[in-house]
Structures are given as C-alpha cells and as structure tokens.
C-alpha cells in the first residue's frame, strides 16, 4: 500500500506537470484546471505589500488588482492567511472578490486562497489529496498549481484553492442557505459527548454562515449528533446516527484519508481536525467536507488504522459489518485509482518548470530564514510593534479558520 501511495503521488505529479498551458475559457473549472500552471498576477501598492508582509499577526485587508488568463479583476481584497503556514517571506494569501464590492463574484466565486505550500514542501500534497477525494465522489475544494506574480515579478509557486463558502456550497450541494461550520482544533477530540450545554460545541465548530443566529439554532443539531454517536444503542446506532450524518459518506471519507496517508484529517494523528461541517437548511443531516491536506501523503508506512479505536464514531461504525465492508472497499478502490493514474500518467514527461521554480524559491527561503535575527531585524520588529492597527479590521473573523488554530503539539504517534 505504501509503495502504491508513493508511486501514485509521483505519477499524479508527473501528469500534473505534463500539461503546462494557458487556459482559454473563463470558467471556474478553467481557473482550477490542475493540468495547467495557473499564472496569477496581483498588483499591489508597494506600501501595502510592505505592510502585509511586515505584520505577520495581522489579517488586515489590502486592495489589489488580480489578473488571470487575460482577465483583470480590479479592487479585490487580499490578506495574510494561515497559522502554521503563516509566513511573511512567502505569505499565504486569501483573495476576496467581494471585499470592497458586496456580492461581487468572479467566475461564480467570492474568494480564493493562494496557499504558500510552506507546510507542503512538495507543493502537491493537498492538490493530489483533494483531487483524490473528488475522484472518489466526495465533496472537496478544487485546487490548481499556480505561479504567483506580484507587480509583474515572479514571487513563488502556490496552490490555488477554492474557498469553502456559499459559492462552494451552491456548487456542490445545490444550495447555500444551510449552516456551515469550520472545525477549530484546540485539543485532541474524538467525537466524545461534551454534555448538553452548547458552548463546548460552539468552541469546536465556528459558524461560517448564518453567524448571527442563536446558539440553539446553530448547535442543537450538532449536540444531538454527537449525543447519538455516543449514546445510541448498538442495534439502533445506524438508524440514530443516520439522522445526523451519512455514515456511508463518513466511512468513504476516512477510508480515502487512510489510503492517502492523511495524518491530520478526521482520524489522523491529531484526532479530529481539518474539516467543515455543513447542515442543509431545514434538515439535521451533517456533511463532512475535508480541508487543509498539507499533512497528507504523510509517510510511506503511515498506519492505516490511526484513530480507529480512539474516535467514537469510527469505533462504533466499524462494529457494523456493512460499514466495515464499505471502508475496506473504498480503501481498495482508492488504491485502484492510483493504479489508474499509474496507467494514464505521463511518467518521465515532467516539465521542469513547476518544481524547479518551487525548489529554487524554497532554497532562497531557507537562506533568508537562516540569518534573520540580527540587530536590524530586532529594530524592525520593535518598529512594527509600535505600528498602529489602521487598515480595515477583518470583519469576517477569517483568522479563526481551522488552519489558524493554535500550533499543535507533536502528535502522540510521533512523540
């Protein structure tokens, strides 16, 4: 299995790099066409670009123009994103199309992310993982490799990422009026029941839509789901839990995560993490949407059964034969997907462009990071601390996204 993972990753990467071309049509599918290196140009006032990079803790927005595939979108808002991936040398960026013009979309999208890949040295883990989810029929954001240019100068190799927002919900669920939550990692959690009070659930899942609704409206169904996961009797488990989540989807998702060696997913080394939860309007059924796969393809020998015992939902689901079969069938199907990629891929055709650029840039980053703590930098930091917060506050509270969660301790499996 491990060898297959490695091979699959290599082949998919090769296939990915084999077709570097410019997209011609103007659809979101073209923007997220992962068979092309998408060139994204951002034009930013040099003062704004300086302060964006000088204030690593800030999520202030700055105005910019974005150009892609011959189309220039004026007056977008950009800001730093990420926590573990937060970098001022190679900043991860969120690009909001509707920051200054409410309701504006670009190709049906209200925002995109430019992930800096600093937690993914290969630059393709997330892209391959999300592609695998989608190939297996699961709902996952689209990604594409991107060359980011700032003010006409090449800046770095990034991963263009679809945001999990109303636009995404509308495209995959056909509606976006439900309740979207983003999981916020704070400690190891395995779907254990946290009691009838709703605050502990609110601490774990932050609302991203319908944010002004009461805690009861938001979290009563979540509490009921966790309660049923924990309290439903053995014979009633499937019926009880199925009111709140599709167990088949859950089993397929964790199976794909196991196949792709996702170390920080629903069952990874850090317990439950990196997902969105979506509840359709007027219903109690919750969908898991994977997010942030920078720890996928984690290791050749990464165990297949990580979290199976600790995670209550997984442990109980595995007592149901049909779900167990589904899990292993999906595992095999994912492996077969790798085989198909092996057959279809263009091994040996890897264009040097993407990796060369990325490696060169990362080497430069390491050199820069090697000797930063000199007096000038200290002076600079002091000066930055004195700077007033002036630019618009982040009204969306986006800094609380899951990948902005506190830095995690070394996983137990690695300690």
């Amino acid at each position, binding site marked *: 299995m491990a060898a297959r993972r490695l091979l699959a990753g290599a082949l998919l990467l090769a296939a990915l790099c084999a077709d570097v071309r410019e997209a011609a049509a103007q659809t979101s599918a073209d923007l997220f066409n992962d068979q092309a290196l998408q060139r994204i*140009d951002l*034009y*930013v*006032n*040099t*003062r*704004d670009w*300086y*302060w964006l990079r000088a204030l690593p803790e800030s999520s202030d927005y700055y*105005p*910019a*123009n974005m*150009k892609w595939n011959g189309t*220039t979108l*004026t*007056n977008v*808002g950009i800001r730093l994103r990420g926590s573990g991936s937060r970098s001022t040398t190679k900043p991860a960026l969120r690009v909001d199309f509707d*920051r*200054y*013009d409410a309701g504006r979309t670009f190709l049906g999208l209200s925002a995109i992310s430019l992930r800096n890949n600093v937690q993914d040295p290969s630059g393709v883990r997330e892209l391959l993982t999300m592609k695998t989810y989608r190939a297996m029929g699961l709902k996952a954001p689209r990604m594409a490799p991107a060359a980011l240019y700032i*003010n*006409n100068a090449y800046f770095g190799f990034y991963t263009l990422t679809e945001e999990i927002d109303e636009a995404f919900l509308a495209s995959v669920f056909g509606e976006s009026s439900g309740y979207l939550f983003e999981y916020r990692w704070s400690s190891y959690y395995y779907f254990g029941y946290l009691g009838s009070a709703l605050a502990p659930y609110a601490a774990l899942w932050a609302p991203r839509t319908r944010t002004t609704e009461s805690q009861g409206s938001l979290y009563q169904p979540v509490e009921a789901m966790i309660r049923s996961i924990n309290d439903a009797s053995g014979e009633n488990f499937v019926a009880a839990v199925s009111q709140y989540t599709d167990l088949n989807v859950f089993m397929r998702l964790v199976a794909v995560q196991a196949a792709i060696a996702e170390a920080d997913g629903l069952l990874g080394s850090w317990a439950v993490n990196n997902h969105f939860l979506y509840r359709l309007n007027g219903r109690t059924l919750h969908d898991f949407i994977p997010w942030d796969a920078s720890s996928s393809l984690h290791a050749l020998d990464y165990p297949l059964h990580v979290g199976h015992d600790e995670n209550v939902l997984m442990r109980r689901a595995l007592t149901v034969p049909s779900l167990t079969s589904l899990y292993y069938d999906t595992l095999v199907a994912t492996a077969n997907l790798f085989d198909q990629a092996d057959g279809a891929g263009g091994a040996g055709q890897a264009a040097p462009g993407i990796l060369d650029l990325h490696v060169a840039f990362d080497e430069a980053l390491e050199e820069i990071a090697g000797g930063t703590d000199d007096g000038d930098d200290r002076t*600079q930091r002091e000066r930055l601390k004195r*700077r*007033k917060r*002036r630019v618009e506050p982040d009204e969306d509270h986006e800094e609380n996204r899951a990948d902005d969660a506190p830095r995690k301790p070394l996983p137990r499996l690695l300690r």
Partner: protein
Amino acid sequence: MRASNAIIGAFAAALFAATPAAAQIGPAPALDPSVSLPAGSRLHVDAGLLAVFGAPLASAAAAKKDGFVWDNRPSIRYGDWFQLDGKALLEGAVESHDPDDTGDGTSFEWGRRRFGVQGSVTKYVEYEATYGWEPDGLWRDLYVNVRPLAYAQVQGGRFKIPFGYERLTGPRNLDFVYRSRVSDALTPGRSVGVMAHGRVFKRALRYALGVFEDDGEQPPDLESMDMVPDEQPQEQGRSWAARATVAPLRLTSLPGKYNNLEVGGAYTHALVPEGRNHLQGDTVFGGEFFDRQYYTKGPRTRLGLEISWAIGQAFLAAEYIVSRDAREGQGVGNETQIDPDLPEIEGRGWYVAGAWVITGENRDGGVNPKRPLLQGGFGAVEVAARYEKLSFASAGSPAEPPSRSPRAANVAGNADSAWTIGVNWYVNRWAKLRFNFINETLDDPALGPAPGASSLQTMVTMFQIGF
C-alpha cells in the same frame, strides 16, 4: 416630531421676549450705521472678512465719548486712538430627525459659545481675539490687521482663509441654521497665516491673497500613514488662497440698497500628506454620505464662484465650488506601471438661496428690526429657502466600475441633494430665532447614515443671542 419642535420653539421664544430689556442696560441703542452698508460690510461678514472689507465702525454718538460706552455692545474708547469692543455669541438648537434611527427623539444641543474683543489702535491697526467655549474649544479669531491704505492692508494671525462667500459670512448674518453642504464640506475655514488685501474703486473691487500654515480647520483631521523604511515623514504643506469680488453696480448711480450685487471667485492650493485625507461629505441629518475611505496624496485645490445681492427686502446668494484631492502614487499598478497616480477625488457642489423680510426691513447689511419685541412691535420676520447639491466622485471618467476599495481608480461616489425652508424671527438687534426644515436625498442611500431611507428630514429650531 414637528409638534415637539413647535412647543420647544415657542418656549424658546418666550425666553427671548425677556432678552431686549436685559440687554438694554446701557444707553438706548442707536441705529448702527453699519446696517446701511452694502452686503459684505462689517455686520454682514465675520472677522476674517471684516478686516478685508470694513473699517471699525461705531455710531457717531458713541464715538464722541471716551471711556466705557454701550454702543449696542460694551466698548471702551479713547478718541480715534483706541477702541475695544466686547463681543459675544450664544446659540442653542432643538433638533429632531426622521428617520429617528438613534431613538434620541428631539434633542437639545449648544451651538457656538464665543466671547471676545475687537477694535482698533489708531486708524491703522485693527485687531480681534475671539475664543470659543465649545467642545473643540480654541481661539477662533486672533489676528491683527494693519491698514496704512484701504487698498493695501496686511493681516496676520488666525482667521478665515479667504474662500467661500457663505463661509466668510459670520454666524449672526447667516440665513439658515446650518451653512450649505458645499460650504460645510469644501471650504477651508480658519488657519494661521498672512494675507494682503484691500479694496479699490468705491469698494467695487476687493481682493485678498494669503499664505497659511495648513488647509484650514474645516476639513477633518489628517490621518497619518505609517512610514516604510527609508521614508521621510510627510507633513502638511502650506496653503495659499486668492479671492476677488466685484460689485459693478457700485459704480452706477443706483441707490445704495440696490447696488450691492457682488460676484467673485476664489482659489486655494494646499499640499496634503498621504493618507485617507480627502474631503468628506456630511449630511445635515448626521453622519457621512461620502466618508474618508480613499487614499490621497498631493495637492488639494479649490475653485469657488459666488454671487450675492441684497435688493431691498430680498436677498439672493449662490455659490459653486469644486475641490480636487490628488492621489499621487496611490494606485495598485498594472502591467506597465507600479503605484500609478489615480484620478483625483472631486467634490462638487452648489447652492441657490433666497430670503425675504416680510416685515419690510432692508436686507442690506443684515436685518435690524424696526420695531423690536416689547418696544412697540413684534420684531422682524424673514422667510428663506435654499436648494443645494454636493457630490463626490472620481474626476474624469475612469473605465473601471466604481468601488469602495481605498485604492479604487473609480471611487463609489455619492451625492446629497437638499432643500431647506426657514423662518427667521429677529426679536431685536441681539436675539433671533431660526426655524429650518431640511429634506435631504442621497444618490446612494446605502452609503449614507440611514441606509434604508431614501430621504432624510431634519427639523431644527435655533436661538441666537449675540452682540
């Protein structure tokens, strides 16, 4: 809302009825000769313009006395060598709004609370010092004017930058509770500087040319930008202003009360440091309809045109002002240029106003009731109306759609159109009551103070006591 205004207005009026008796402690007020002067003379304009257009005036009777005299105001005089007049102004207003989005209902607010002195030392030196005990309490006017010749005078200190007819009109001679939106937003107000000025041809031509330390007190405070490495601090540059007015009918044989038609123009130039420092638009209703959202840097210019005419009982005035704030290097760039200049932010506004004294007094030089209340009459009553518009947008016609981005080439503009009807009751020489109803309409209500409201209405009743 209207009923409460009326009640409070009546209450204020009752208070006013007692004012004349209290005010006449000194000698019975003689007719102030200044009221017969044309528009723009001492009583018609405030301190800054006073020095430009008028000499210290005193009634002939009072001028003959030395020591303390009451000549419609407390005064100390010693022949032609020294004169010191006390001056005071107290205002308060009861105001209500529709929609009442704050839930405040009818509220009372103090307006100007100013006290000071003005006068002359010999016939060559004039002075004024006025302090405002207001929330932003500070010296309002503090200047000396040296006038060796009527056509060649020099004034130094703090006073109004010579721009804008209504801005230069003192609060006692305004026809409405509030100045027009364009005067409020686009004129500079007071600053510290030096100004050469004078008048020639029987006051048919007046001019003023001055240099000032900044762009005046009227624009909101400047926002400072944080410097990037190796950047030098930016400071506000000096401004300069020029103004000229012509009263062509003064050269004709028309009677004085008809010949004061005055037309003029003014220009200012200031250097404004980088920041969100453009001029902004405020509603009478309260709150902005065009806020300081956009980065600017570089020159701010203003051009103003004006006309005023007091014709017997009637008075007409109109102004047109255009301001432009440069945005040098504030763009986000494109394939060929980094940090490009952006189109200027342009403020453009005008008003047309008229007033009619229905009790028959002349408007020339201000309204002075022939028969004050409790002195055999009811005072003087005047009706007034004004229509105005103030708009902000990017200058020119930028190709891109309008946006709220602080570096948008095409800013999301807005405009405020307003009409005002008013009644002014001049109880006596010192006290007056003004009632205004103002209806404002915003081009884009979403950017205004009450996003759901297509029109904003304000009712205000203001009392004013001053000498």
